[in-house]
């Protein structure tokens, strides 16, 4: 299987604190890879290094075999890599529809053509479909900042998919949302994955969510990769249990 994402010996140190310590893994096309680990294990730092938000201290990142270590997030996005953040990151003053158009507009023509072209960058229909897909139709013209937390989480995820990415990195998508919304989000992610054959990497603390969604799971502790395997095996892995429970 082709590796969409390859992370090789990635290391990130903040002064004397090593947040990510020589982590290596591959993500294959069409896979849903889960990354779990206790708080402070380096999951989000790993994401930020892969996605250009942070410069790694050492190691290499490759997207489709092309070295992208240290590339800017906007350039990675144009390569078909998208992400969500741990904390909500919608544009509160823009409507739901405009949030989605914004999420895809930079993939439409050149900067100059976007100035003289259509106000919706030709994405009106695609945004309507995405709104429908995430069942936000009744909120399409609402300001994103006025939506409930769970609805904003859905919008946040929808924005990550708007440009039709090949690889989506989701940082704690289930964080802080209720069980009903959680089920809805998981079902929508699975539906998107089935329909578009997209590749997902998911950081999550909510174990049921990870077990139900992911096909393979990596476990990080103190910046190191301590286990890797199918969700069922990971759940019973004594090293993982020790890392989580401390005994």
């Amino acid at each position, binding site marked *: 299987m082709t590796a969409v994402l390859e992370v090789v010996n990635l290391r990130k140190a903040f002064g004397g604190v090593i947040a990510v310590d020589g982590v290596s893994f591959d993500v294959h096309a069409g896979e849903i890879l889960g990354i779990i680990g206790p708080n402070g294990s380096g999951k989000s730092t790993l994401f930020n290094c892969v996605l250009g938000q942070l410069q790694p201290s050492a190691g290499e990142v490759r997207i489709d075999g092309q070295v992208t270590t240290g590339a800017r*997030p906007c350039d990675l996005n*144009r390569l078909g890599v998208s992400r969500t*953040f741990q904390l909500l*990151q919608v544009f509160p003053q823009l409507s739901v529809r405009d949030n989605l*158009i914004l999420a895809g507009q930079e993939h439409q023509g050149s900067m100059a053509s976007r100035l003289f072209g259509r106000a919706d960058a030709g994405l009106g229909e695609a945004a309507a479909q995405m709104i429908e897909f995430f069942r936000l139709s009744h909120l399409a013209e609402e300001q994103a900042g006025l939506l409930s937390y769970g609805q904003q989480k859905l919008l946040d995820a929808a924005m990550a998919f708007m*440009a039709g990415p090949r690889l989506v990195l989701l940082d704690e998508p289930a964080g802080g949302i209720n069980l009903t919304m959680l089920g809805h989000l998981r079902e929508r992610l699975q539906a998107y994955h089935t329909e578009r054959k997209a590749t997902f990497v998911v950081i999550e603390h909510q174990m049921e969510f990870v077990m139900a969604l992911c096909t393979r799971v990596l476990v990080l502790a103190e910046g190191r990769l301590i286990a890797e395997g199918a969700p069922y095996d990971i759940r019973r892995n004594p090293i993982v249990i020790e890392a989580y429970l401390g005994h």
Partner: protein
Amino acid sequence: MTRLGTLAVVTATSAAIAAPFFLKPYGIFLISTWAVLTTAAVGLNLTLGYAGQISLAQGAFVGIGAYTVALLTPLGVPFFVAFIAAGLLCFAIGWGLGYPALRVQHHYLAFVTLAFTTLVFLVLRNEQWLTNGIYGITGTPRPTVLGWKTNGGQDFYFLCLSILTILSFATWWMLRSPWGRAFVALRENPIRALSLGLDTRRYTLMAFAIGSSLGGLSGALYAPLVQFIEPNSFALSLSFNLLLMVIVGGSGNFFGPFVGALVAVLLPEWLRITQGYYLILYAAAIMVMMAFCPAGLLGLVERAAKALNDRRANATIPVRGEGAGT
């Protein structure tokens, strides 16, 4: 735009066209000043209100534009060539000034732009060989447009109003395009914007350059309007005044600078009947305004319109049991 909004714009435009026919020369000078400074405030609203990049340099760009026209037209350069040169020069300088904005934000950026304004003021004052220093430059001629002489106050006002209309339309076009959405994204969440493929660096520089360019074009009209320019006119107080126009009108609201400039230009004049107290009253009025409507006057209008709409909507919801077929 709502029907009420369209009606307000049509009424305001009609009033702006009709106003000089009912005003004395000083009144016409004031509304010309309004038209000129609104152009600069529209530019600042783009940089600050939409893109969220605080700038205390807009007054300096008005100065650069004014001096460009005042220096070029006596050399025989046609007004409109000098006018465009002023815009282009300020675009280039504004682009350069945008670079610090890539590194610093908020009050730190305010200080960078404040330092730039001071620098421009010092150049205008000290480089006498170029700017005539504190003696300033007099007699910048008013242009003739396709045989239409704009020497008279009323004619020049209509020229300023026409240019304001064209530039405002161009700005509106840009803000309704994907660029406008990108500028708002820059203001609200640059990190997320970057992750969505927006080249935030280029958009930040664009926001600075276009905003500054509008400041320069405003200055290019300011020189023939007042026909005497000197460095003090473009010191920090003008930048603060332009900032006040944007904030009082409604930062990030397209029509905010129009209203804000009206308040900042006309209110002190109306308060002159109070003689020595007019500045105190003006300051007090601004403080009260900011305390009760931090979103600006148009923010207040929008709030009132929303409350009215909500009341109407509530009034039309049938009380349980009153609906047909129950």
